């Protein structure tokens, strides 16, 4: 069964599911509305044997990274600031790559959520155990809450960390070690 057929099959029950405009190269990329993410993944796993969660990550599309996010100003080369303002919009894009080891298929799921303080998506914990730490990492870096995750606390940064570092508007507050 190809990914096209799977998509057609799923679209009958989830009309929000669609092919993404800007796909990941060489990967079938679908956009999923946040509310049906968990159900789609459950269906993918149970019906189409997509049992392996490769990646959970996110992108902050709000524009170029603020230089204040670095304790010392990085050596920014001229022209490094992005020219393409067209892509900038006020969303977080949560990216999942799931794969089926038996069928050798890989699908990228993308889920756009508005860029607010309490931005949240449903957690995939329970469907894929691999989501456990990867979601914690995304929470740590972006502050995106994963609803239903049993242990959503910071994982990589120290407890003294202020703010979410991978947000583009992150501003570093010097602490005692700087």
């Amino acid at each position, binding site marked *: 069964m190809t990914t096209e057929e799977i998509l057609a099959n799923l679209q009958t029950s989830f009309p929000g599911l669609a092919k993404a405009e800007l796909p990941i190269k060489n990967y079938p990329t679908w956009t999923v509305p946040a509310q049906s993410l968990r159900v789609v993944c459950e269906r993918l796993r149970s019906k189409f044997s997509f049992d392996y969660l490769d990646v959970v990550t996110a992108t902050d599309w709000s524009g170029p990274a603020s230089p204040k*996010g*670095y*304790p010392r100003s990085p050596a920014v080369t001229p022209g490094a600031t992005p020219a393409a303002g067209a892509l900038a919009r006020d969303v977080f894009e949560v990216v999942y790559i799931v794969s089926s080891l038996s069928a050798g298929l890989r699908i990228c799921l993308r889920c756009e959520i508005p860029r607010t303080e309490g931005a949240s998506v449903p957690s995939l914990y329970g469907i894929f155990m691999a989501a456990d730490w990867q979601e914690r990492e995304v929470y740590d870096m972006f502050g995106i809450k994963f609803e239903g995750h049993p242990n959503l606390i910071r994982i*990589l940064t*120290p407890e003294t960390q202020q703010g979410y*570092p991978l947000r583009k508007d992150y501003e*570093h507050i010097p602490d*005692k*070690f700087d």
Partner: protein
Amino acid sequence: MGIVLDNLSKIETLPGGEIALATSDSLINWARTSSLWPLTFGLACCAIEMMAAYAARFDFERMGVFPRPTPRQADVMFVAGTVAKKMAEPIIRIYKQMPEPKFVIAMGGCANCGGPFYDSYSVVKGVDKIIPVDVYLPGCPPRPEALMYAVIKLQEKIRKMKVKNGSGATPLQATGSRKLS
């Protein structure tokens, strides 16, 4: 043995005391330079080169460098790698657990000044911000030979230590780790 070391400098007042003191200094320093026991403690990439220095080709044990797993029995700490802010407190604690006289070698660019992560939000830019450092060893990562060179430099430093100046510790060590704001 602290009592002996503390009172050893009083020999100087005796006739011929200076010679005796110089002899005991050289004996003590010989012992200390000849058996520098580091802590088996690695942080990042440099730790692999540190392991290579212990291993067959470079064989640190030729110089009497014999790794100990616990800070209580160690003389020197190789801070081998990037010091993340989360790791800073444990490093200070380990340093405090080591018995005097204790030495620190900052191995690699990260431990010296932050290295390639000089502009990172979660890296301590140089381990000398949290503990006193005796020898700075540049490189990313330094070769095992370089680490041996750092140890030789540390030995040179130890040879200049005198019992007269504060129970044989280097001046910075006498005050312990720096106070954090």
